[in-house]
């Protein structure tokens, strides 16, 4: 199985007529068994089509047209309009929202996340590339065109969670080359506040039988790794975890931001060095190099279930 989405997942694309969204829609329709993109929303564009997907003015119209609840939405509207688009999705019964948009002020993100929580919906992102279940479905631009995604991602036992969209593919490709496929790979976004953190996705992977181990990509900035370390310890997770920490050089440059909006060293706790120590305390192995990840996770897997 997989987490978050599967072959039957229906979703819409909000902002579907934008250049990036048109490409993303094509990619999702082409990948695996072909995603069920049941509609798109761009206000004022009712009646158009994008790669055969009908376009509506409102999410409510898309739901009415579909005739039953729609599970997900990929939101690609400009930052100033994202909060409204996400509120619209949530209030129309959408349960899983992938926010691609970058540069959204964190107050808006926090409001979206709180409303989603109240309504039992989940947000992935913002500033992310989405979710992929290898050979089955992808929701978002993750992995790029179907042909490229198929080259990097293969089905298998490893769950991948990453604060960087590009590195989700780099790590999955490295795992695939070593014969370790992925159950689901999630690009969670690089902002200071995001809808779903490592610790918030862990229970889903924990409950997924296909998943036997987890690989994460992390950066300096924030407390998300400490939260993961605590979750793993408190819940006695069955899943071995290997982490990769990029941006170690930033420890020498407090107050400077590199890479992603959330990546800035502001205090002692959010340095790369401190995070590595915390992860290690929770039994999470921190790889020095990407190419070491397959070997590390493989040996952890064989420790837990001797052949």
């Amino acid at each position, binding site marked *: 199985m997989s987490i978050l989405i599967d072959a039957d997942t229906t979703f819409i694309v909000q902002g579907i007529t934008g250049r990036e969204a048109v490409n993303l829609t094509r990619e999702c329709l082409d990948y695996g068994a072909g995603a069920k993109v049941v509609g798109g929303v761009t206000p004022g564009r009712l009646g158009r089509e994008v790669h055969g997907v009908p376009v509506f003015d409102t999410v409510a119209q898309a739901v009415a047209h579909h005739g039953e609840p729609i599970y997900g939405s990929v939101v690609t509207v400009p930052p100033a309009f994202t909060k409204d688009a996400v509120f619209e999705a949530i209030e129309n019964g959408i349960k899983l929202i992938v926010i691609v948009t970058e540069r959204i002020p964190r107050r808006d993100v926090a*409001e979206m996340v709180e409303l989603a929580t109240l309504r039992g919906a989940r947000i992935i992102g913002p500033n992310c590339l989405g979710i992929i279940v290898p050979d089955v479905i992808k929701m978002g631009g993750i992995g790029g065109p179907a042909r490229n995604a198929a080259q990097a991602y293969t089905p298998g036992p490893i769950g991948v969670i990453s604060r960087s969209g590009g590195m989700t593919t780099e790590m999955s490709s490295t795992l695939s080359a070593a014969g370790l496929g992925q159950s689901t790979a999630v690009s969670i976004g690089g902002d200071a506040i995001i809808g779903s953190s490592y610790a918030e996705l862990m229970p889903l992977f924990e409950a997924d039988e296909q998943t036997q181990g987890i690989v994460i990509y992390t950066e300096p900035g924030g407390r998300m790794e400490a939260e993961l370390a605590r979750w793993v310890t408190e819940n006695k997770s069955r899943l071995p975890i290997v982490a990769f920490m990029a941006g170690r050089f930033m420890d020498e440059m407090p107050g400077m931001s590199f890479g*992603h909006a959330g990546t800035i060293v502001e205090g002692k706790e959010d340095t790369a060095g401190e995070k590595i120590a915390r992860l290690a305390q929770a039994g999470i192995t921190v790889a020095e190099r990407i190419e070491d990840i397959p070997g590390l996770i493989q040996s952890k897997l064989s420790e837990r279930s001797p052949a």
Partner: protein
Amino acid sequence: MRFFEYEAREVVKRAGIPVTDYGFTTDAAEAKQIAERIGGPTVIKSQVLTGGRMKAGGVKFADTPDEAEAHARDILALEINGHMPRGVLVDPKAEVAQEYYAGVVWDGTRKQPVMIFSPVGGIDIEQVAEEQPDKVGRRHFSNILPLSDFQAKEVIASTGVTGSALNKLVPIVTRLAKLFVENDMTLAEINPLGQLKDGSFVALDAHMDIENEARGRHKKLLADLGVGDEETRQAREATPFELAGEQVDATDHRGVAGNVTEFDGNLGLVIGAGGGSLTLFDAVRAHGGKPANYCEIGGNPSVAKACGLAKLVLQKPGVDKIAVMMSIVSNTRVDIVARGVIKACLELNMDPAEKIAIFRIPGAWEEEGFKILEKYGVDYADRSVSLNEAARRAVEKIQGVAA
């Protein structure tokens, strides 16, 4: 973006929180006039965006207006941690009975703002939290439910403060929380929050940080405070090289080829994307390489932009070679970046095969990209070569040059 103290105090004042009758100036003679108006002992404070100004001599006490003028003159000429002051703040020397702390920050784990309050103020709140944890109160508040006085009351009362002090503090902390939210702050702190001999409270210093992504919706406030659009107030001022990088990125709206940070090494980096750049920069350093710069390519930039960035890096004094490396791309096209960096070399009359230590960008349109690179004899690698290995090869080549 961080505010200067005189700006933060203005924000506090506008929120209806009592402040002292201070004045800001860039002129020593005017400092004297402000001190005369205040009439009594004053404190002259350097307005710099760096810590440790007290130790550095950037805060001085004056009994007379003449003394205030002399101190202002000294402080205006005093560089602190590489920063020249924006001006000085002339503040009445308050008769403080007790110093408190009030602040609001984001909690990224809970995804809500949190009010922080302590009856132990005037020192770093993290130090108080470590040494007297029972003297620090914290309370999260909702992003969508109404903000109400009782929340501030709870956090203040949790630190043992009661009586008239509690009742006077509640509106101050509530207003601070409100200004934090309304102005898209990432930090709003009054420290110390002074209780005067008569029992009233006044903000004696304030720290405010506004989120860069939200600056667009606070144009009026920023204009009122005199903050220019071009002021980024990074931890260190942008260098001319970094500003040139911003210009390259502004060439057109397609993708990103910028976020340049200057370093002083000999290996120029044309790298991406966000996470890939962080990984690659670490890898170059781990192999003993000396990067000349950090940068990011992503989102499929135009040939012109990739070329502009490569040219900028190639022309940087001290750069012997460049390494062009990214994590596997799916949106950015390999051939476009390849075209851009080769064009840069040719336009500068440099041999791409000699100047480009390695090109490691696998992914979308790689066949086309690799064909171009082959034509010019550039050493390239596909995804079977890790980011780390690519960085190692680049460092190996350049150290050959240095030796």
